[in-house]
């Protein structure tokens, strides 16, 4: 029994789930240790389609990517292509996150045909490190084509899609569901669940915290008590004999 199993494993190169952590070590870190632990290869993939499913804008869905985008923009001389973003990504915010702005290209195709043409050609062109898109409707077979193109071009493809898309199966290699998380230590948080990954099952909910201090409470001025400072009579103030200047003390003449 074991011998035949071993033969099978050797002959066919069967992949075993137990090798999840050791096989894909090459992937760079996502910048979030909790997420790295769940991703195959302990980091974001370098190619293939990654789907990020969320319903709400403003929960940190883009900031989830900024650490890796910043690193990619600095290390690789390839473009970061954003295809028809819902709003123009704000350059000062990207610069704050460390993204090299000269690597960013925004493309706004008008027709759905052009949209898919841009996605596929950019992915296959080998000249983009990452292609990010916000498709409203996209078919399975179209994603499959993007998956093939991103393998050819060694380009990471990120698709932001609504959460409802998670019900249906998708050819994407990696699917994550994003939901707003409870803020922790004044930092905003994001609740992530890996729905699909190579060599793994659906994960539990992971809470990622951003080091942004956005939830630091404002000082409440309404309850502040203004203390009266007692006036000090002038005679009681003493003038010092010596004054320290540049670390040395000089005496008054």
């Amino acid at each position, binding site marked *: 029994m074991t011998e035949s199993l071993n033969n099978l494993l050797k002959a066919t190169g069967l992949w075993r789930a137990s090798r999840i952590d050791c096989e894909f070590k090459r992937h760079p870190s996502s910048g979030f240790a909790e997420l790295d632990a769940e991703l195959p290869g302990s980091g974001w993939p370098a190619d293939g389609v990654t789907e990020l499913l969320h319903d709400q804008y403003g929960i940190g869905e883009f900031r989830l990517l900024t650490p890796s985008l910043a690193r990619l923009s600095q290390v690789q001389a*390839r473009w970061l292509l954003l295809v028809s973003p819902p709003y123009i990504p704000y350059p000062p915010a*990207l610069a704050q996150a460390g993204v090299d*702005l000269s690597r960013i290209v925004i493309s706004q195709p008008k027709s759905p045909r052009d949209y898919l043409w841009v996605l596929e050609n*950019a992915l296959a062109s080998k000249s*983009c490190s990452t292609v990010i898109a916000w498709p409203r409707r996209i078919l399975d077979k179209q994603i499959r084509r993007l998956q093939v193109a991103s393998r050819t071009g060694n380009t990471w493809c990120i698709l932001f899609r609504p959460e409802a898309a998670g019900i249906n199966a998708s050819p994407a290699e990696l699917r994550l569901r994003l939901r707003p998380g409870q803020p922790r230590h004044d930092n905003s948080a994001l609740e992530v669940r890996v729905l699909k990954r190579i060599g793994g099952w659906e994960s539990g909910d992971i809470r990622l915290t951003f080091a942004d201090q956005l939830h630091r409470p404002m000082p409440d001025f309404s309850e502040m008590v203004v203390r009266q400072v007692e006036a000090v009579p002038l005679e009681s103030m003493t003038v010092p004999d010596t004054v320290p200047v540049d670390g040395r003390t000089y005496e008054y003449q």
Partner: protein
Amino acid sequence: MNTSKNDREIWLCLNFTRLPVEVFNRQQSETPVVVLHRQRVICMNTVAEALGIRLASSMNTAFTISEQIVSIERDQKKEFATLEHLAQWAYQFTPSVVIKAPQCLLLEISGCLKLFRGLDNLKQNIREALDKLGFTATLGVNGTPLAAQCFAQTRRADNLDDVANSLAPVAIHHLQIEPGILESLQQMGIADCRQLLALPLDGLNRRFGIFFTDYLQRLTGQKPDPQKFITSKPRFDSEINFLSDVTSLESLVFPVKRLLGELHDFLRGRQLQVSQFSFRLAHRSHAAKTFNVMLANPDNDPAMFLMLTQLKLDQIDDMPEVDSLTLTARHFHDMEAPPGDLFHGTRFQQKDGSRHSKAEAAKAVELINMMTARLGPQACFGLALANDHRPERAWRPVALNARREVAVFEETGARPIYLLPQPPILESPGDLPHMAGPLTLLQGPERIDFGWWDDGEVSRDYFVARHACGALYWVYRQLSNNQWYLHGIFS
């Protein structure tokens, strides 16, 4: 000739014998084509010639021989434009090119023989290049411009020695002599140049006038014959006409390739690169259609030109027929010598720590070119910071070909990932912002009061606000009217 052989001029004349027909019909077609001038055939292609049509015959005669003959009225303007274009094309062989209307080009080639490894090689090069263009020409080589022209017209073997000797067997009606003088000479019993040149010059001068003897002296090189050389103007126009209407755009690929090949030669001959060129598709009964091909960086790569042109052609769907195709280029740049790269394609660690390779950079430009060709120049841009404290003016879109200056990023408060182009007004019951539920103000205020000196005055208090659903927004209160606005999303 007293001058030594080294500084003697050598002139090569290209005589475009079929120019009137070739301006209309460059490709070798199976259809007989004749060009008419005042109801008479003045030029025809080889197919028509094989059928037995003669020059100066009338159209009726031609039609009795074959019914498939296509006849075209002569267009001398077009002929001259084509000759000018051919002169610019010939500039790749020598800088001294002269246009001799109606159908000759003169090239002074003494300076370029070494480069092209001898006269035979040079002529071979010219012949091959002309074949590619689709023009036929006879070549003549001699020591003076007029003699070379005469040799090209009479198809005589090249002469690099004494001009007067070489001209001796030429019949005098092949020279450019006025008909009256020619008749008188023939009546005198003079048939060829040997006899003509043996006559005393002062006698000829008295009898036929100074212009005739001047011509003879320039012909034999006794007098200098200054020429007006073309200047290399950086402009490129080339046209291909089709005999029958082209109905499918796919069949334009071959003529497009030919035009782009000409453009490539033109650019290479001048060490130039082009950043933009345009095609014009025309038909006699439709409005002409023009499209531009823009490049992110100046380039001279015919393969890339062709790919971008095809992308543009794919988008044209309202052009039923085409009968002429024109390529025009006006925006030229000096060629930047590509630095030699011994380890082509290898990635080198740069000073700034990143790893770039030449191949990668070329690929990156190619993608931008493709996207601008397909989507238009506005649909593809980059981002840059701008020096302004107003959030909406702290950035600007930039063209991807421009070398950008690096704006210094100033430390500011938290900035959202998305900025809304038109901030919507928020409801504010109890002077607190609402957006389908109350917004909790988390951080702020960050006051931005800027631009009172120009039209875009801003005076606002910015806050980070949290919605009950967990989303973070960037909102502000306009100080002038205490109105709340949504300006950004912390995505």
